């Protein structure tokens, strides 16, 4: 690491974590200027990489003494600018805290450090037939700490619930530097008092730094059956989703891709999906063998009735995994069909999918931009990808505008401006369209319980005049984009 300490605070932090765990040179700080939301960049004053809860607490106390804002950071794959630095802040990165501390099969919990990669929990357990359920598409690169902060979802959250349903307890370093145990300590199902664990999950790094997480682990199901179906358009695919859900079937996952998304995925991966279709659904049913067979057969009937062109079941596990790999690589695959894209994340009532996708296409067309869709259809959680060419003046701005209009459509249908990526920097201004000033003031009461000075991730989530006037900077590729699967997909 560099010996040129740019910030006068460098030595203070180095005294806590060691000089090699403080990043201070402008060149190295560049990596930390943004997360997966690439249009915004702010250079932090310093980045520190503590290795223990005690070091985190000491760094938090020091930051407080120095009056520096704190921005926690996991792997930096967030898509809402949650880990975007604030002016003059210290970024506390948890990447070094990546131990699985304890697996307790008798109580069906695991205790992990925040820097553990999501998939590594399952990797550590799968030989014994256990797994950690929440599966964001970024699961091979994102951290549990980031998942906790965003309350991340994933395809199989349709049946199994989101991060919040799988986190039983936490260790939190609060903004005043105290180390506090929240929630369950060893798998006990309830604890006394307010559900602070439930509040910290999804609090986007504004309540403190999570330094340990007690997660629920599940026994893997007896069987998983995957169904793959194509449709003339997203209308029929949306109708199939409604029919399946409406019939009382609870699949593990139902994901949808539209024609553009299929084109990109086929170009980028080994899947042999047809290109002459309007949409496809990828569905998993899992559970007890006899039940899965029955449920899959029934879902198939509904898919047929909705007007499917072709229905396939993968012939073996390899083919099944390939299909899912295709789906999970979808964001990254966009690079094949567009120089740039803007990921949106909104939620609508799931019965409205067909209608809303048509409105979104119209919004894109009006702006002269294409919009690809690949999303968690069973939950009504849309991910429109607004495609643009950053070299053409005005296109990036137009793409952002379309993204914003999409959120307004979601709200008009009674939905939400974010289903899993968080509000962060990106959507702070839209939160004020979803909630009233009184709603937001009430949320501030919760926030200031933890952080009365509002020093943790200070410019996120809540709309402020300063934020809402901001314009995105020019597009520059970021490390996450060139990091294999993480690459914007």
């Amino acid at each position, binding site marked *: 690491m560099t010996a040129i300490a740019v910030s006068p605070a460098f030595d203070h932090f180095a005294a806590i974590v060691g000089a090699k765990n403080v990043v201070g040179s402008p060149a190295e700080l560049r990596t930390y200027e943004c997360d997966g939301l690439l249009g915004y960049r702010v250079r932090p004053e310093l980045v520190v990489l503590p290795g223990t809860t005690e070091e985190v607490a000491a760094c938090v106390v020091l930051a407080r003494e120095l009056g520096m804002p704190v921005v926690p950071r996991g792997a930096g794959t967030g898509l809402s600018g949650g880990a975007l630095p604030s002016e003059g802040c210290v970024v506390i990165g948890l990447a070094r805290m990546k131990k699985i501390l304890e697996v*307790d099969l008798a*109580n*069906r919990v695991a205790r992990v450090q925040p820097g553990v990669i999501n998939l590594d929990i399952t990797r550590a357990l799968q030989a014994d037939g256990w797994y950690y359920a929440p599966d964001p598409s970024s699961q091979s690169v994102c951290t549990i700490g980031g998942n906790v902060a965003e309350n991340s*979802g994933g395809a199989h959250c349709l049946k199994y*619930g989101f991060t*919040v*349903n799988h986190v039983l307890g936490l260790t939190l370093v609060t903004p005043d530097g105290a180390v*506090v*145990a929240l929630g369950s300590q*060893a*798998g*006990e*199902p*309830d604890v*006394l*008092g*307010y*559900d*602070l664990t*439930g*509040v910290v999950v*999804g*609090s986007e790094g504004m309540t403190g730094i999570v330094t340990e997480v007690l997660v629920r682990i599940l*026994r893997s*199901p*007896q069987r998983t059956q995957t169904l793959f179906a194509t449709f003339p358009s997203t209308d029929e695919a949306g109708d199939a989703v409604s029919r399946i*859900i*409406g019939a*009382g*079937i609870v699949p593990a996952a139902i994901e949808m891709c539209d024609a553009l998304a299929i084109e990109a995925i086929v170009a980028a991966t080994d899947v042999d999906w047809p290109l002459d279709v309007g949409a496809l659904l990828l569905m998993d049913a899992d*559970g*007890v063998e*006899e039940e*899965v*067979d*029955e449920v899959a057969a029934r879902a198939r009937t509904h898919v047929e009735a909705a007007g499917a062109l072709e229905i396939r079941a993968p012939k073996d596990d390899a083919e099944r995994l390939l299909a899912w790999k295709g789906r999970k690589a979808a964001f990254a695959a966009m690079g094949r069909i567009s120089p740039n894209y803007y990921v949106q994340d909104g*939620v*609508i*009532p*799931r019965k409205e999918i067909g209608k809303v996708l048509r409105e979104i296409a119209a919004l894109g067309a009006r702006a002269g931009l294409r919009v690809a869709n690949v999303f*968690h259809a069973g*939950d*009504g*959680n849309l991910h429109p990808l607004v495609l643009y060419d950053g070299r053409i003046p005005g296109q990036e701005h137009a793409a952002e505008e379309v993204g914003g209009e999409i959120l307004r459509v979601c709200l008009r249908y*009674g*939905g*939400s*401006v974010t*289903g899993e*990526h968080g*509000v962060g920097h990106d959507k702070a201004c839209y939160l004020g369209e*979803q*909630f009233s000033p*009184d*709603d937001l003031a*009430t*949320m501030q*009461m*919760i926030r200031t*319980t933890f952080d009365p000075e509002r020093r943790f991730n200070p410019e996120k989530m809540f709309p402020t005049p300063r934020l809402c006037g901001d314009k995105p900077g020019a597009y520059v590729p970021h490390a996450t984009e060139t990091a294999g699967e993480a690459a914007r997909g």
Partner: protein
Amino acid sequence: MTATAVSIAGVTPREIVTPRSIDELAAIVRELHDARKAFAFVGGGTALDLGNSPRALDVAVRTSALDAIVDYAPEDQTITVEAGATLADLDRVLARHGQMLPLDVADRERSTIGGVVATNRYGRRRQRYGTAKDLIVGVSIVRPDGVRARGGGKVVKNVAGFDLPKLAVGALGTLGAIATVTFRLYPIPEAARAVVLRFGREAALGAALHEMIVRRLEPESVALYDYRALVVTFAGTQRGTDAQARTLVDEIAPAHGVEAAPLSELERESYEQRERAVRRDGSWRFRVIAPPAEPVATAANAVPATPLAVPVAYPLLGIALHAHSEETLAAPPDAAPDWPVHDLRETVADRTHNRGHVVFDAIPAAARGLVDPWGPTPPSFALMRTLKQNFDPHGLCNPGRFIGGL
């Protein structure tokens, strides 16, 4: 407007008001707040014994007239209801569409949505469906200062903003009144099977439970009655539930030398009756809560014998429920005033390496004030106090009733 008398954890309010609309509820709360009067909310009155006696109580606000179904979207499996609607009201509406809110709370004709959420009530099917925390997707509240606020929304997936719904669950109305709640719903399973396993030895119980998990069965509920009869239910498709019941009866039980038999719907219902009794009867009622590997044995050994209602435990969750008559737990002449609560807590803490605790859902009038129904506060209590302070700086809203006197 004074209706029938109520007593909240032993305290009788001076006045009872019954707002006719949420606007009226907000207006009343604001008025009380501005006049610095203490208030508490009352739903169906099924859990008024829970918690400490409020420090002050001028007015009880009944939610019974706020019982509208605000919005039901069967295709989306979500429903928004006012807090005073009862579980039975909801059951009736949902059943028409083959759906349910899977919170098996007894006394459905009286239990209101607001009350169930505020007390975080659950039953045996928590095994599959979780609690209100897992089912709530949105809430609107009237804050202690009379301001209305919303959190969450009407869609099943949503991470916009701080999670007010989670905070409303189990807060015992100390952060304001729950006005409306939005839930995600589940389809009523087409088939259900129940099996009973009878145990002589605790070791066999643990082994059989373990094998159920290892064999990847997916029970809807697992409840142990009187530390002897384990009732396992499966729900889902016909073939799926049949197959699981068969595996349990024909393979798992014999392998552990345990007697097992399918239960008819009638027999299962009789167990359900016992379960209701343990939630309703007895002047002492309490829950032992601990990591799942611990509490069944702990509770069985820690709790005085001859309970009034058959004890029920959920061994995969880590919960045991007991009900006792006043006499069973009556103190010996020379005992400390909080006996046997104190002993019970010590034993549970000891056997669970301080991971377990005991919550009293009901305490006889004679023991009120002598016994802390909640027990020692958790390490995060300072944050909880600040939270309460932020919402209710004047301490007017159900003051003192919650843990640590919040």
